[in-house]
């Protein structure tokens, strides 16, 4: 019991929130593209360039927030390229996503060598990290539980506040509705006169924005340094979460908390002397198990949905043809 006590306590929960934030940000970004019907495997790369350019910006301007802006801008450029190729040129989204990830990896290492003359990592050089936010009154309110809501870097709060905002966006705003329609029933969107291209571009760019924030949080908030491939598969885990949550913000949050916990728990296990190589596999194994287990459970639903959509497709084909020629 004592070991359990040492493993699970307030510090662990706070650590979970901290490790959840980057994956939550990037997964919420991916939620936009998932809802808009795009399979975005390029999250990893967007996150990585976000992290790198956030560090560059922070060094260049001496301000952490300007650094975050730089990181977001870089991720947006990647998201834009992704959108141009996938939406406008209708290229294969898996291929483009993977290529952009590879590009991000090679580019950040090349630029790191060119600018800092080093391989591996950027530490020091005057990187300004994001400040920790101490909420006033947290200690009075919660006592020893205060670390649960206070003392995080700003983007942790942004990540968790974004969840209800996304719920509102999908349920209460025109943009959210358009994104869902485009993803679920592109034919219907077209019939309603919604520009699929424009909605998908918007979704991709919103995704880039959040992925950039996730990257900036990794290199300026979570720790204050950049290392080669520092996103280390978080973007791919986010995609796994998106697959089984179907992009619903609350389910995304639940999935991300699971991974955040696995991450924090494995860091904790390392201090108990378990071999680090095995401990480091924990988050990936959890992701794989979740992916497989939930797809097994979703089996009847998948079959039902396939039949349903085929039936609908057949009936839509018949009824939509006269309407299609004569919109409105």
């Amino acid at each position, binding site marked *: 019991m004592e070991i359990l006590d040492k493993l699970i306590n307030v510090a662990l929960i706070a650590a979970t929130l901290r490790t959840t934030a980057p994956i939550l940000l990037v997964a919420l970004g991916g939620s936009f593209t998932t809802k808009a019907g795009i399979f975005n495997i390029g999250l990893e790369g967007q996150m990585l360039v976000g992290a790198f350019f956030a560090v560059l910006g922070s060094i260049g301007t001496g301000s952490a927030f300007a650094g975050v802006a730089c990181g977001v801008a870089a991720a947006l450029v990647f998201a834009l390229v992704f959108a141009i190729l996938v939406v406008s040129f209708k290229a294969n989204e898996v291929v483009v996503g993977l290529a952009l990830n590879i*590009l991000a990896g090679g580019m950040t290492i090349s630029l790191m060598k060119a600018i800092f003359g080093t391989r591996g990592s950027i530490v020091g050089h005057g990187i300004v990290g994001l400040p920790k936010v101490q909420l006033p009154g947290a200690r009075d309110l919660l006592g020893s539980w205060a670390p649960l809501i206070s003392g995080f870097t700003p983007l942790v709060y942004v990540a968790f506040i974004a969840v209800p905002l996304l719920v509102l966006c999908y349920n209460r705003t025109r943009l959210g509705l358009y994104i869902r329609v485009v993803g679920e029933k592109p034919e219907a969107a077209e019939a309603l006169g919604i520009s699929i291209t424009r909605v998908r571009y918007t979704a991709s760019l919103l995704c880039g924005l959040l992925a950039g924030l996730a990257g900036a949080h990794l290199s300026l908030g979570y720790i204050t340094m950049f290392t080669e491939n520092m996103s280390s598969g978080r973007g791919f885990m986010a995609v796994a979460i998106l697959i089984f949550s179907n992009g619903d913000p609350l389910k995304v949050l639940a999935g991300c908390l699971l991974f955040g916990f696995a991450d924090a728990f494995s860091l904790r296990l390392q201090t108990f002397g378990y071999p680090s190589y*095995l401990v480091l596999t924990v988050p990936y194994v959890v992701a794989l198990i979740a992916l497989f287990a939930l797809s097994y459970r979703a089996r009847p639903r998948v079959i039902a949905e396939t039949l349903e959509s085929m039936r609908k497709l057949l009936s839509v084909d018949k009824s939509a043809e006269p309407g299609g020629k004569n919109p409105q």
Partner: protein
Amino acid sequence: MKDHLRAVSGQIIAIGVALLMGAIIILMVGESPVRVFMTLLRGAFGDQEKIAGTLLQTTPILICGVAACIGLRGGMFNVGIEGQLFLGGFAAAWVGFAIPLPTGIHTLAALALAVAAGAAWVAIPAYFRARYNTNEVVSTILSNYVAVLLTSYFTIFLFKRPGGWSETPPILATSYLPEIFTFSRLNWGLVIGLVLAVGAALVFRYTKWGYGVTMVGSAPKFAEYGGVNVKRQGFLVLLLSGAVGGLAGGVETLGVHHRFMEGFAPGFGFDGLIAALLANGSPVATIFTALFFGALRNGSLLLEVDTSASREIITVIQALIILSVSAQVLVRKRGDSQAGERRWKF
């Protein structure tokens, strides 16, 4: 035939565009593109040894490329070749140092276990892909991370060479893949790769099974009505792809390193996938794209010595090539507006 010519010329234009964009990035990192490209060329083909080195780098890319082709033909993205390569490499090394066997048989046994390890590693994602339609791209990518960490654990905690640094004991000489020349480590692995590529092409072209695989990849409904068991086929395709990925690792261990070490073949799996994509899923064309990427890789070794650019600049160029190939609709939009959608849907 004209289509074929157009496809090849389109690919070459895309490579040209990518090299141009690569030149801009090289300028951005403060090097002269001409110098970088000349160094790459010199590093890849400068003399006899350099050419052999290029072929040595081509070997794993080619075998991984064939693995990727098998998957792509059957409509499967095996992005886990990297992980299968690592496990295959470790499995071959284990047979090599732990089980004494006569020459020849030893090599074959090690390669067989490498193949089995690669197939076993992809079996679970393949099963769930075939049975429950679980996205194989994500599951195989995530399993890469596990494979790399797991082989590192085996190497460092279970089978470390006494006094060595994160490597297994050397394999016994009976399990070596024989070298072709005396002046290079180039070995029969290249021949294995070439035979595999041609063999795969023949299977796809002339056998009923190969035709079924291609049909499942390009028109699954048609294949199903034609009597192909699509689920079983998909499972087998991924398993075969993983097996070849494992073989690539075995060849790399037995032919080049003669031991397993941490990070022993970084990126070959991804290079193979890119080579297969650039070759449009054709195993024979993969021979040439693998040679191209092998040359880039070997050239990049000299790049670090002779210029201030880092060798990852070739990764950038590879990614740009794939991006411009997928944007090829730009070039041929006039004739065929569906080209982008059809690309890589075999």
